[in-house]
């Protein structure tokens, strides 16, 4: 141990800083990629059981190794470059889709003090970074030199840009209630047990946020970007192998991000619902589990992921003009009215949420 420490101290200070940051990034990204892999497994299992079938159950016990098998298969597949496509942009697009999905996790607070970059414009940063997701889709559609791909890119681009507005307004409500854009600050503003969470005064904004979140990630029932029946598979129809896998990874990483944000912004993040109920949190052994901690954040995130899968198993796909109508004529007016009411409630000091 001393030997390791002496090597560590031999580095100049800025090298140490960079190394610590790199280690933290790996500590966030590795579990994230694993979570993405097993979200695909959970999706196939959950939808399978909802449709009274088994889901994957051949590779490994109960099919647990299925995601690993999928990854190996995708890695050894050939990546085909279509004729007359723009080579550089074709390979750049999957990276542009994936990078924002990962970068947004840098400001995510997992627990008190457990955050990579504790910046004071955290919420705005997340909005800015998630608004870049659409470039991967648009450029993939353009670079593929395929009519199906470009049609899908147009649909997806218009859809994501429209729903970003509704989502932005929903987040404005959260920062008005919390009085800060720092994500840890938003969670701490909700401390005091389940009744203090922002979901109660902001229930309308939460619904708008989650609906737009589903639309932003191009998931069912808003998955017209990859409507298999009309435009074969959408913007990634020309992609194969690992290039396709990167789009897949980006979609699931974005789902996890939207779910984790829903937990943090509206459901108290790492805070326990039993906070303030002292006889429960002071119990031996289980008291630790019932108190605040990262496991509450993971549990809440898992619940929202389940909602995503549930939606996909039950809802039929929206028609494109209906999606646009829902976004512009229903969700945005709802958020505007709710923000106006919220301003009055804050001015009146509506306890216990808004002071």
């Amino acid at each position: 141990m001393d030997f390791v420490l002496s090597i560590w101290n031999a580095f100049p200070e800025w090298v140490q800083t960079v190394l610590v940051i790199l280690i933290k990034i790996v500590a966030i990204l590795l579990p994230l990629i694993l979570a993405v892999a097993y979200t695909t497994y959970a999706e196939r299992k959950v939808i399978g059981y909802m449709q009274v079938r088994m889901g994957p159950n051949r590779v490994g016990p109960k099919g647990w190794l299925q995601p690993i098998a999928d990854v190996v298969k995708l890695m050894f597949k050939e990546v085909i470059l279509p004729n007359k496509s723009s080579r550089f942009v074709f390979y750049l697009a999957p990276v542009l889709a994936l990078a924002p999905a990962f970068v947004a996790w840098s400001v995510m607070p997992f627990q008190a003090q457990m955050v990579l970059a504790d910046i004071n414009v955290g919420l705005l940063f997340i909005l800015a970074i998630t608004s870049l997701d659409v470039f991967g889709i648009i450029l993939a559609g353009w670079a593929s030199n395929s009519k199906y791909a470009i049609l899908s890119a147009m649909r997806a681009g218009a859809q994501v840009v429209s729903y970003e507005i509704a989502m932005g307004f929903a987040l404005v409500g959260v920062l008005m209630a919390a009085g800060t854009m720092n994500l840890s600050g938003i969670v701490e503003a909700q401390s005091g047990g389940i009744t203090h969470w922002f979901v109660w005064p902001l229930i309308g904004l939460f619904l708008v946020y989650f609906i737009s979140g589903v639309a932003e990630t191009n998931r069912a029932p808003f998955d017209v970007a990859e409507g298999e029946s009309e435009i074969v598979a959408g913007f990634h129809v020309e992609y194969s192998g690992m290039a396709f896998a990167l789009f897949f990874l980006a979609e699931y990483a974005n789902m996890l991000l939207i779910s984790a944000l829903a937990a943090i912004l509206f459901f108290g993040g790492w805070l326990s619902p039993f906070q303030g109920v002292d006889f429960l949190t002071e119990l031996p052994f289980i008291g630790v589990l019932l108190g605040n901690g990262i496991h509450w954040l993971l549990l809440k995130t898992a619940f929202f992921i389940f909602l995503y899968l549930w939606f996909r198993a039950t809802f039929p796909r929206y028609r494109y003009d209906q999606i646009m109508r829902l976004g512009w004529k229903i969700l945005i007016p709802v958020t505007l009215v709710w923000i106006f009411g919220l301003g009055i409630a804050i001015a009146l000091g509506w306890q216990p949420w808004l002071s």
Partner: protein
Amino acid sequence: MGFEQIIFYLLSAVLLASAVSMVTVRNPVYAALFLILAFFNSAALWVMLEAEFLGVVLILVYVGAVMVLFLFVIMMLDINIDVMREGFIKYLPVGLLVAVVVAAEMVMVLTNKSLHIPKPTPQPADYNNTEVLGEQLYTYYVYPFEIAAVILLVAIIAAITLTHRKRPPSTKSQNPSDQVKVKSTDRVRIVKMKSESTGGD
């Protein structure tokens, strides 16, 4: 040379290179991509100047919204690059003149003694410039801010009235409010009748 200076020169170099490529590159989609890169680097420079709110808003508004619409339009247009580059030599003198004037103005501003502002002292890490900016905008500058908002609203309405025209009646289109209001009795007529039997059982 400190760590901060290395980052500054790196960002500035990429910013200048991408700005030059944006003008010179042949393909308009590549030009838009270089413009995005330039926006990113200038946002990073703003963050280095402790204007993190403005830096993030630059990415949110220009890269996340304006450039997406730009790319949309460029991708839909069938641009003939040769025709676009035809006037290059013809307009070169005018372009050079504008460039020289802008460069001369920048040199004059940068070398003028009366415009030299002393270097501001760095703020502590917990200084929140979003809050300060909001306070200034909504107290001292509330009227200019509101007037700017109204002018933008007028621009939006003007753009809509210019482009929105009634479709010719031959165009087939759906009316969503009719579709929402429709009832099953409008679409299906249930006819009660006796079952016909051929006596085959």
